[in-house]
């Protein structure tokens, strides 16, 4: 069974998407796929290396901005293209939320077709909704 992982919506200047998951971790993983798909087709990226990723946020929104920001950071500093974000765990302590994940993909951006760019992850229209499962909505600056 394939469930819808993410969906794009109209936005005048930028890209807006919702990502879905049964858990918050799954919704985050699908948000990572949605964002990557604005730049390349994650399904075509070889799973050659795994990069451990960690992020913190005083709330879930900030955590999501930091988490998705890792994709841009790894692309631009290490030419890493994400195939999938896996083994995500999100924990909560007194100072907020902490995330650990493994990014699978290939650190050879020249080998793939890249069809778009993302400048930054924004808080604009950001929503994290618990509705049986989770829906996260993100607008990225492109």
């Amino acid at each position, binding site marked *: 069974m394939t469930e819808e992982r993410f969906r*794009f*919506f*109209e*936005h*005048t*200047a*930028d*890209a807006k998407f919702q990502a879905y998951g049964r858990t918050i971790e799954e919704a985050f993983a699908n948000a990572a796929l949605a964002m990557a798909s604005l*730049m390349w087709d994650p399904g075509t990226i070889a799973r050659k290396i795994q990069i451990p990723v960690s992020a913190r946020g*005083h709330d879930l*929104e*900030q955590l999501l*901005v*930091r988490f998705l*920001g890792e994709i*841009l*950071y790894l*692309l*631009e*500093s290490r*030419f890493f*293209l994400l195939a999938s974000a896996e083994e995500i765990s999100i924990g909560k302590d007194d100072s907020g939320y902490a995330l650990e994940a493994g990014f699978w993909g290939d650190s050879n*951006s*020249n080998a793939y077709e*890249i*069809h*778009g*760019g993302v*400048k*930054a*992850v*924004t*808080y*604009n229209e*950001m929503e994290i909704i618990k509705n049986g499962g989770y829906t996260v909505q993100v*607008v990225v*600056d*492109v």
Partner: protein
Amino acid sequence: MELHKVSDNVWEIPKQGDMRVPAVIYASEKLLQSVRRDLTLTQARNVACLPGIQRMSYVMPDAHQGYGFPIGGVAAFDMDEGVISPGGVGYDINCGVRLLRTGFTAEEISAKRKELLAEILKEVPAGVGKGGITKLSRGVLLDILSRGAEWAVEHGYGRKEDLLMTEEYGRMKDADPAHVSARAIERGIPQLGTLGAGNHFLEIQKVSHIYDREKAGVFGIEAEGQITVMIHCGSRGLGHQVASDYIEIMENACGIKGLPDRELVNAPVRSKLGQQYYASMCSAVNYAFANRQMIAHWVRDVFARVMGTSQGMRQIYDVCHNVAKIERHMIGGREQEVCIHRKGATRSFGPGRPEIPALYRPHGQPVLIPGSMGTASYLLAGTAEAEELSFSSTAHGAGRVMSRHEALRRFRGEQIRDDLRKMGIELQSTNWKGVAEEASEAYKDVDEVVRVSHEVGLGGMVARLVPVGVMKG
């Protein structure tokens, strides 16, 4: 939203609720229609609520919805009571435009157009996830953040006189790379000297019309048919990371309680954090100046090789359109220092301002407004009236009206290339999907934007430039 018509092309949101000042929108009826379709007006009203805002929250004719501030938003804040906000500058710090004149005519380059473009595409790295041609050490990058285009000229990229014809002379002196994060620097190292993607472009243009011959002559535009080169790009991942970093740092330090929008997060201008952001932003501004300086140098190299000379290729000007600055402006009849934010807006200093290069000072600064892909761009001159109207600011481009998603559904990059070719415009890109997203139909009519700027007095029309060759990232 309640909107009063003040006069043709001028609209006002009266002070209400938490607004400290009214908001004013410069737009024709037609441009206003698209402004009303998104959150631009709400965002302009939100900006009017920020502490220390002076006179008005201004909205330029090409405005559209942004983050925190609208794109096309201008706001000046008191140095003591006011704030500085990364959301008031935008993610692409010192996204800007550089214009070079040439001594060539359209006829002279006609046969070599394809070759010029192909060579430029080889010399100037573009696209996403592609590194520049330079391998920089961290130390060199820090030097670039401190010294901007000065560094580039010293290292053989371009000419000393280019610096004279650059806003801030190519270097914001308040830069301090010590406040730029390691992550921003890591993103900046591979990308120096790259054009990027999205709406960034490099164009070979020809002058299609001159409106003001005297000013055009002073700026270096002599005749219709003359060739110019326009470069539109910014501070790449380094600037994006600086913006993201300080939005987070300010949020964690100052909180977001009471803010109508999370991306209006700010710090008092003179606070330690406010000053750290400003010093980092200036560093990113300098990176972008160096970036455009290097790209301009490679373009001249290509012209020298293909056309035999690059001698007449003088830089007309280089402007920032995403920036915060400390400037002196008239407030309540008194000259005062303010922290002005121009987010998707171009400085438009009129005659006499000391910041303008001596050659242009009697005429007002050149204002460069890039159109969308395949449409006209404009050279304007700053006006004296703009001081009163908008703290000396005007539009920065065409402004989007259609989502990229919708553009992708409607257009194909290769088809656009073929259509442009029929119009005599050669297009090169590494990314045809990106070309479809940037279809000119997805943008406001730049002619209308510039007409409003001219009629209101924000910036006066000097010359219209149309592309003959376009390189898209």
